[in-house]
């Protein structure tokens, strides 16, 4: 579980919007093969941090090193090609494309042959247990959990080294969350895919991740195993507020 080589190093990253510091000197490492949970209350800077790693924003200070290479400020598609791919908090479906075509778009990153990409897309959709009778359905006609699965499938299809999942469980029912968690575990194990999971739903992320980082008001306030995090007084304070006098 631990002790894998460090594939991503985030060093003192700062991102400001006007006078607000959304991410303030955050550093952490991601080890090969792990699922790293990233939690924090609303506005803690989790999504901004994701956007810095994937190149949507350029951080004002600090460095992001992926597989020994400085990737700070590169364009999103360049970073994706290097192996960091994300899913979105609010699903961003290709509404007028079929499920299979959507995943094929992801697979085309590593091949020029549409036939080959389609075959790969089918395999991945089957792997994440997407209902086969909906492969040819348009993106606008599927349910939320299916959207999340398609989002996941098209990201996996690009053959990433590191997958960033931004609040995948948001809006799902408890039984759907369990289904998604088991799929994510399967992807992590069988495809040896390293993941960072940003999450609000504590039970979901606690059960999924081997290591966790907690952010609060732009800063990293804790790091450790889910057990350590659950008992950390600063974390409890950030989530529940200070004890009343």
């Amino acid at each position, binding site marked *: 579980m631990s002790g894998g080589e460090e594939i991503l190093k985030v060093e003192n990253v700062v991102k400001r919007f006007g006078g607000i510091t959304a991410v303030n000197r955050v550093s952490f490492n991601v080890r090969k093969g792990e699922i790293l949970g990233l939690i924090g209350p609303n506005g803690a800077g989790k999504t901004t941090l994701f956007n810095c790693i994937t190149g949507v924003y350029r951080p004002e200070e600090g460095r992001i090193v992926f597989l020994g290479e400085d990737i700070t400020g590169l*364009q*999103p*598609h360049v970073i994706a090609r290097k192996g960091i791919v994300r899913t979105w908090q609010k699903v961003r*479906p290709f509404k*007028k*494309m079929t499920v299979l075509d959507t995943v*094929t*778009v992801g697979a085309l990153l590593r091949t020029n042959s549409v036939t080959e990409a389609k075959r790969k897309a089918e395999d991945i959709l089957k792997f994440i247990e997407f209902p086969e009778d909906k492969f040819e359905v348009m993106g606008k006609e599927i349910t939320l959990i299916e959207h999340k699965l398609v989002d996941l499938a098209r990201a996996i299809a690009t053959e990433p080294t590191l997958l960033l999942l931004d609040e995948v469980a948001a809006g799902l029912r408890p039984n759907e969350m369990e289904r998604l968690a088991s799929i994510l575990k399967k992807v992590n194990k069988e495809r040896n895919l390293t993941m960072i999971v940003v999450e609000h739903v504590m039970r979901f992320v606690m059960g999924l991740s081997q290591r966790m980082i907690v952010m609060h008001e732009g800063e990293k306030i804790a790091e450790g195993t889910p057990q350590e995090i659950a008992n950390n007084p600063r974390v409890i304070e950030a989530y529940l507020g200070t004890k009343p006098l």
Partner: protein
Amino acid sequence: MALSEWVRESRKYILGTIILVLVLAFIPFIIGFDQYLLLILSTAAIFAVFVVAWNIIGGYAGQLDLGAFAYIALGGIVAAQLLVVYNITPWIGMFVGAGVSAVLAAAIGYPTFRFGIKEVWYALLTAALVVILNNIFHLPEVLGSLDHYLPPANGWYYLKFPVYENIYWFILAMLAIVVFINLWVSKSKVGYYLRAIREDELAAEALGIDVRKYKLEALVLYAAILGFMGYVYIVIAGTYSYHTFDSPHSIAIAIMGIIGGLGSIAGALTSAITLKVVEEYLRASIGATIPGIHLLIYGLLLIIIGIFKPDGLAGIYESLKKRRTSGRKKISGGGNP
């Protein structure tokens, strides 16, 4: 994509296109080579070429381009001037025109996509391009205020004939080629990437798609086709001048593309041919008493399509197809309600 793979994948559509073009090519025999009707048909056919080319940038890549006549007029005027001034055959001049239009598209497209200009701002920018070129070509140093004429000589060297059927058949051949280019784009990696960009640019980029590069490729391909056809347009129009940079017709091409349904080749073909024929008919029959009636009808059609069928004519095909297949399912009794 390999050629053989493309032929196998799109066999049905390739056959369909060939049959359609052959049927259209036969029409002059039915109407007894009526030159007036042939002029209308030629105009409709060349607009079909424009709209099918527009489908690449507007339909697949989802960029609302209103600048078609910037590229048509530029390419056409380049080929016409080469013929008039240097007596260079349009068979060469049209390729030069296509090249010049492609270079203009690249020069405009690179900064446009680099700085992320899209949606209404892209539409405004491309509409402005036509107006700007119109004004530049109006300068006395360029074309001035006068109409320019092609040499009076006729024949294949000039691609210009005393009758319309030859040019009509030439346009139909081009139409087939442009439809094939569309089919190829649609089935290839580029087509998948362009559709992904149209659906969600940010998501597409996060999947490793170089959004700027693919948009630019689509724009340059579209501009090159238009630039190539520019000379033929001038042959039909009879003259060329700064007026050839025609804003209303640029917008009409986008409207036909939208009414046809974004990304649908069949929709683009149908809407271009029917709308253009109806427009010419209306102009000829009641245009003198009610000027601008065809524009009114465009507007009405857009409103009706916008309310009932936002996916255009292609959406109507799709829902008909669906009704048929779901009807079949019901008969076989399977599936949940």
